[in-house]
């Protein structure tokens, strides 16, 4: 087995529980609630951006490089654009790309992982090989090269991020699917003559829902961060308004060197808040489904001797 050694170390097979207790566990988990609240705020901002700040956010509305004031809460850029409008509108592209990349790479990961685990043998060898090659190819340079050759645009950014992002989820999902594949109920399904597709998506997939969710969250975080990185390097579509592009222009116009910290801070903090919120939800999912990681209330020694 080529990948046996590289399997995710912390991942123990999730204990299957009724769905309701999973949702309940999430809702009574402080991390999850905080994370979801932050995400809801950002999604609301993204949806309401055209209402809150009507018109093109990158049009010039005021004097250049104004400090934050009552009129421009976050000041203006070196061009005289309103930073708050840019930041709120930026959430649209950033969340859209992040979610698209997250869902697409998780979807490919599910397909590859399930097919590997279910069919095994030759198909597993081939798919694992492809996964491992993509995992090993250095991500950022590959991103840069691909973005350089493809015509600039939002589609390119999404495509490039999916190409470099699917392999990680495929590996995690494969190892989880493998452990479920060896369970009795799957063997029973095979014997009772169910079709391959049904076994993969109806028998195996629902039993790894928490891992799929964790992978999805990780992929969205990756998508948002990598998009920002690409755009910061000037390899995105510089005409769209997004957090990454805001930072690209901030760097380009020398916002920091002239001391205009208000141009530079908002977009970065937004990316961090979204990523942190998603990470919180991710940890909460882990804690709810993996009893070992749960907060312990008893002192260390009694816990250890009890186990």
């Amino acid at each position, binding site marked *: 087995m080529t990948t046996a050694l590289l399997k995710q170390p912390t991942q123990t097979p999730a204990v299957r529980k009724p769905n309701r207790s999973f949702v309940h566990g999430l809702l009574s988990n402080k991390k999850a609630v905080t994370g979801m609240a932050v995400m809801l705020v950002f999604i609301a901002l993204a949806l309401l951006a055209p209402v809150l700040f009507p018109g093109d956010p990158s049009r010039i509305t005021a004097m250049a490089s104004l400090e934050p004031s009552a009129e421009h809460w976050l000041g203006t850029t070196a061009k005289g654009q309103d930073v708050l409008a840019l930041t709120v509108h930026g959430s649209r592209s950033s969340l859209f790309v992040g979610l698209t990349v997250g869902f697409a790479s998780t979807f490919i990961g599910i397909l590859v992982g399930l097919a590997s685990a279910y069919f095994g043998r030759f198909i597993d060898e081939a798919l694992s090989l492809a996964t491992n090659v993509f995992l090993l190819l250095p991500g950022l340079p590959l991103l840069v090269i691909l973005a350089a*050759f493809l015509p600039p645009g939002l589609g390119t950014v999404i495509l490039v991020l999916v190409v470099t992002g699917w392999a990680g989820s495929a590996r995690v999902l494969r190892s989880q699917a493998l452990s479920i594949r060896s369970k009795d109920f799957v063997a029973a399904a095979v014997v009772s003559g169910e079709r391959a597709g049904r076994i993969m998506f109806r028998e195996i997939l629902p039993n790894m829902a928490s891992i799929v969710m964790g992978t999805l969250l990780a992929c969205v975080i990756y998508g948002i961060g990598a998009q920002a*990185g690409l755009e910061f390097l000037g390899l995105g579509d510089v005409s769209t308004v997004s957090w990454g592009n805001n930072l690209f222009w901030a760097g380009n116009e020398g916002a920091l060197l002239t001391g205009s910290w208000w141009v530079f801070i908002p977009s970065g903090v937004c990316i961090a808040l979204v990523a942190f919120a998603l990470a919180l939800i991710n940890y909460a999912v882990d804690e709810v489904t993996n009893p070992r990681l749960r907060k312990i209330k008893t002192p*260390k020694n009694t816990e250890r001797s009890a186990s």
Partner: protein
Amino acid sequence: MRFILRRLGFYLIAFWASITLNFLLPRFMPGDPVSRMFARSQDRMQPEQIEALRKLLGVDDRPLWEQYVDYLHNIFTGQMGVSISRFPTPVTEVISSQIGWTLLLGGTALVIAAVVGNLLGILAAWRRGGAVDSALPPLLVFIGSFPYFWLAMGALYLFGVVLNWFPIRHAFTDGLEPGFTWEFIGDVGAHLVLPALTIVLVSVGGWMLGMRNTMIATNSEDYITMAEAKGLRPGRIMLRYAARNAMLPSVTSFGMGLGFVVGGALLTEVVFAYPGVGYQLLNAVQGLDYPLMQGLFLTITAAVLLANFLVDILYVRLDPRVRSN
């Protein structure tokens, strides 16, 4: 031995895949970027140099398989053409003058992050619910959520521009003669602080959490209870019994981290204008320097694969289960 051979085969396939990707990209991308490049820089080049570059980048009319064979031959004999943006320096020369800086920066940051992160992880798992365990992980995860380049620019602004503690760009002061003098080494060290520190800051959390989670699993093993029952000192149990057995996943991460060293320092190098391969790669992209771009990507890939192969060999030494299989 069989394990090593299998891994070697895998790395060869991975390298072949990246060469093929490199071969296909300029040939199948829409918009014919290579012709644009020639249009821009044709008048500076000799006819035979243009001819060689055309072959390398696929602007000729020969059948595809013939180009492919030729391409493989060129790569393995180290002929990667001349750089356009630093004409007429050969690509190999440009790369070899810069890879050292990348290795220095990435290597320093990786070693510091791995050592500090693992130690913190060990402490956190050993005193679960203690100060290290409850305060640091959320903080580090929060710091890790910031876009890396944003933190780097913030550090550059704060410590470089406002406080003026550290130099803000390049690997050493302009005009200083490189050599093994204390002055030069100190200067390089001062230039290294900010870039390395920012990498450590964002990556240390991953090391810590990984180590913590593995070690929590190790802590509930029977041999730990046994060691406690024997009355061994806690420090000894923590380091020699628990941490030692929880190290294996960290070794794998170290291999992956080595990949980050060569490729991932790109953003750092761009922010700090550090003259490594990542910085050069972005310059090549902006200057439409396709030969240099390809050469850099292949070099980075080769370095990543080599690092991982070395870790695999180390793994055989560390984990007896691999040997017996």
